[in-house]
């Protein structure tokens, strides 16, 4: 799914930032500066960059933690689902942009999964019947119905993250932002989470912003990759273009080995038809090169 050819305009952009600059209260220099991006409804965007590049802080801007919770100085404009972040409280913004954090353990409060998933709706004062309905729905979508009565401490990291996702999903936000959700998970656990997130995006049309280092696994789902470095957005485009760019190499992000292989072959005079991003694409495009070569 790619952005439309003509100028999308503010109606299609669910998130819009203009020259956004933020400095923490105790910060000497800005955590990020001059960030101008537009994210359209239904997009799956992967946000990446070296540690300290500002991506984590930018995430927190999307539901208002920055600036309402952290204080500090926010300059420029940021709008989420039509709401200007500086003018609305976090509890309102949280209903449009849900945030899932890196550490699974520290975002689960209750003594049972069901109660935890219901937490956000309880805070919103929604009726008991509606809460029950939505909780059942969220548990079903994230595939954790059988964990309903379990205590969070008994769950694996992957299961805990699915509970966290369910507890955000239940508020039915238009956007879900995930800040390195698979850091503490093993490869299979990480894969499951990416699959759940992808389903939310493809089946429910939820806009996804995923902060990740594991680009080899995450990029196959992405419509777009945004790369930040030292507080600025330096790359913003299709995975293929971003991974094969010179900047990506200079900044040092973990481009997929598939793309790396393409680059190595190219450096030795072998030009493949397309830039592969997944191993699947790489196999295909290399096979084409052999067939072409033989003919």
């Amino acid at each position, binding site marked *: 799914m790619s952005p439309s050819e003509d100028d999308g305009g503010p109606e299609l952009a669910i998130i819009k930032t203009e020259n956004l600059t933020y400095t923490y209260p105790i910060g000497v220099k800005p955590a990020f500066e001059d960030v101008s991006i537009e994210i359209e409804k239904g997009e799956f965007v992967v946000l990446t960059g070296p540690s300290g590049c500002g991506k984590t802080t930018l995430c927190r801007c999307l539901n208002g*933690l920055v600036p309402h*919770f952290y204080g500090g100085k926010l300059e420029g404009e940021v709008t989420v689902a039509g709401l200007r972040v500086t003018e609305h409280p*976090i509890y*309102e913004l*949280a209903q449009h942009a*849900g945030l899932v954090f890196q550490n699974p353990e*520290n975002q689960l*409060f209750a003594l049972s999964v069901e*109660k935890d998933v219901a937490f956000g709706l309880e805070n919103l004062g929604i009726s008991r019947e509606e809460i029950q309905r939505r909780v059942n729905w969220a548990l079903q979508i994230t595939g954790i119905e059988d964990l309903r009565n379990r205590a969070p401490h008994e769950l694996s990291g992957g299961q805990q993250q699915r509970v966290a996702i369910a507890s955000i999903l239940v*508020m039915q936000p238009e956007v879900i932002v995930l800040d390195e959700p698979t850091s503490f998970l093993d490869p299979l656990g990480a894969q499951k989470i990416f699959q759940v997130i992808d389903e939310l995006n493809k089946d429910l049309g939820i806009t996804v912003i995923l902060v990740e280092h594991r680009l080899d696994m995450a990029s196959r789902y992405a419509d777009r990759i945004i790369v930040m470095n030292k507080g600025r957005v330096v790359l913003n485009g299709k995975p293929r273009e971003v991974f094969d760019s010179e900047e990506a190499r200079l900044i040092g992000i973990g481009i997929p080995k598939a793309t790396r292989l393409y680059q190595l072959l190219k450096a030795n005079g072998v030009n493949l038809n397309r830039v592969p991003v997944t191993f699947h694409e790489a196999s295909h495009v290399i096979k084409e090169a052999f067939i072409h070569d033989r003919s």
Partner: protein
Amino acid sequence: MSMFDGFRFRGTSSPIHQLDPRVKFIYACIMFVIAILFSQFIPLLVLFFVQIPLVWTARIMKEWMRSMRASAMFAVIIFATNMLSYYFYGGYPSLSWLFERAAAMTLRFIVLIESFSLFFLTTSPDHLGLALEQSGVPYDICFAFTTAVRFVPVLAEEAQTILDAQKSRGLELEKGNFVKRIKNYIPVLIPLIVSAIRRSLELAEAMESRAWGAVEKRTNLYVLTMKKDDYLLILASVLMLGISVYVWLFIPVPSFTQLLSISA
């Protein structure tokens, strides 16, 4: 094995587990009042045995026995102190009276443990938090309580990991004199405290991100409703209180030795 084991909630199910925690608490308090009322051995013994059927219905015999055994040490201390204090202050009619008095005081303590242990063993922290909430305690406090309980196993595990990490750097807790041994705990406490602070920050972020504070009056997915069994327990407790007060006012209770001499 500590006395505290007898207070930790067990996830089994029984009619007692299903009872409203507020009712169970009232029951435990009433037992407490009755225990204070009497200083004689026999009524307290009756009080002790009267609660056993409840313990049995709750299917927590094993854990309850554990708490009884663990509190035995305190019981002995109470017994000894009572014996000694009455002995030294004088004014006691006879040795058998002294003995019975000390035994009664010990039994009072045991009855207390018995009733409150019954309460805690059959009430999950979740249930307890809910009961607090519905009893009018501000939600902030209830939330702090249940969240604290939820993180107890997490903190325990983390403390173990920190201890392992420092031991791997040559920390020996047992080494050194008394002062040194206390100091040995600093490398374990500081990381724990720092981690607790960091954790609180992350939790606060997560809470905000789930619309904390959106509405004055939160709804709750669960609600405690009083059922037939709850009213039965309240009735039984009040009845016991009534009988006890009557007995205390009008019926002179014989001492154990008097009973023995009657039968002799």
